[in-house]
């Protein structure tokens, strides 16, 4: 079980997040949405342990995977090394299997800049799932992809989520992404003391998600 219990978070004297509390169960996929610049990515970074400057507590498992908005690969290491370097306990065989799960098995010795953006995103997904994460965090993972590639990535993500059953939290501004992937939607709204949860559950409507606009 993942527990987020943020009391507050500020950048300097500017409050960014107010009280935000929610949990994500194993096997559950939650979409986090809200207006642009409200602090959704900050919530993800706090949950992942990247940002530790906040008031509150986080309960998270050991195995955390993060799919960043950009593929965030090591351009100077081969495709296979991009799986094995962050996961040194994996054997090369397991690395190849992770690549196979996203259809990159024949690109193992390529460098990332020899891949298309879609392939780089798939590599980033393979890296995230290579060690069966208990918590999967994704920051707008399908943004800036053409419709066809985004659809293919979503299909792949669905398949991997079903296979590995992590607790998953992802940021999105897209109603279709939320409807397709999420079991539950959390909507953030601006408050003077920082962002707070406006709605949490299945009842967040498509119109509310559309209302936040692209970010």
């Amino acid at each position, binding site marked *: 079980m993942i527990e987020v219990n943020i009391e507050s978070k500020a950048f300097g004297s500017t409050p960014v997040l107010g009280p935000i509390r929610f949990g994500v169960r194993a096997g559950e996929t939650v979409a986090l949405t809200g207006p642009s610049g409200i602090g959704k990515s900050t919530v993800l970074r706090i949950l992942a342990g*990247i940002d530790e400057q906040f008031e509150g507590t986080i309960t998270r498992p050991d195995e955390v995977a993060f799919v960043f908005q*950009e593929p*965030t690969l090591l351009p*100077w*290491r081969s495709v296979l090394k991009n799986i094995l370097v962050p996961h*040194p306990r994996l054997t090369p065989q397991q690395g190849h299997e992770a690549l196979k799960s996203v259809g990159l098995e024949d690109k193992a010795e390529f460098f990332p800049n020899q891949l298309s953006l879609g392939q780089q995103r798939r590599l980033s997904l393979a890296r995230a799932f290579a060690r069966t994460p208990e918590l999967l965090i994704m920051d707008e993972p399908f943004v800036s992809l053409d419709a066809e590639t985004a659809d293919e990535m979503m299909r792949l993500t669905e398949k991997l989520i079903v296979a590995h059953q992590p607790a998953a939290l992802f940021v999105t501004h897209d109603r279709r992404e939320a409807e397709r992937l999420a079991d539950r939607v959390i909507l953030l709204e601006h408050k003077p003391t920082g962002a707070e949860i406006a709605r949490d559950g299945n009842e967040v409507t498509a119109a509310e998600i559309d209302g936040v606009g692209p970010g």
Partner: protein
Amino acid sequence: MQAARLTPLLSLAGLLSLWVVAAVLTDDAQILPKPWQLGPLFLQEAGSGELWSHLLATIIRVLWAFGLAMTLGTLLGLIMGRSPRTNAWLDPWLVVFLNLPALVLIVLCYLWIGLTEAAAIIAVTLNKVPNVAVVIREGARALDPDLDAMAQVYKMPWLSRMRHVIFPQLAPFIAAAARSGVAVIWKIVLVVEFLGRSSGIGFQIHLYFQLFDVAMVLVYAFSFICVMLLVEWLLLQPFERSTRRWRTA
């Protein structure tokens, strides 16, 4: 393409011709010998073993000073680039050392430590560390924060982070610092040898300076220039190419 390859050769031939013209006009081998007059002297020094022993002494000093300056400068630059607080404290020191003439540091090291090998190497190292640190600091400031976050999320061990995330990003800066480092260090080593050592190319140049033997000064100077050109072609350029391999793949 052919012309582009010929240009540096033609340019060097031009320099050589200029030397020949100057030597002919001077018409005094004691002041400026003709290029071909250096050949027999070079063979004489190489044959007696004198050239090699002094060359080796200088190379060892260059290697020590280079290794120390690169290691300390890289560490200092990395820390200063990553921590604004440390940078605020150490930046004024860096400015002071950057503006301290090499000669002052050399003289002070000899006065404080004595005319020893350690003093010579420390003097050269201290001269170069600030330059390396400044270059590496720029590299450290340009490190990709997203890659840092990625390394943190996947709990990459420190050594692995350094090897796979930090150093590949710093490599072009390290290569630049190394290249300018080698060029500057060997020149300072010669000064250090000139002032307070009894071996090395700098010592020999000092000796022949006192004897007013321009030809021998040139023989020793050119021998070491050749060594440094070999270092450039055989070590530095291949290293630079290897750090760029992924960009051109």
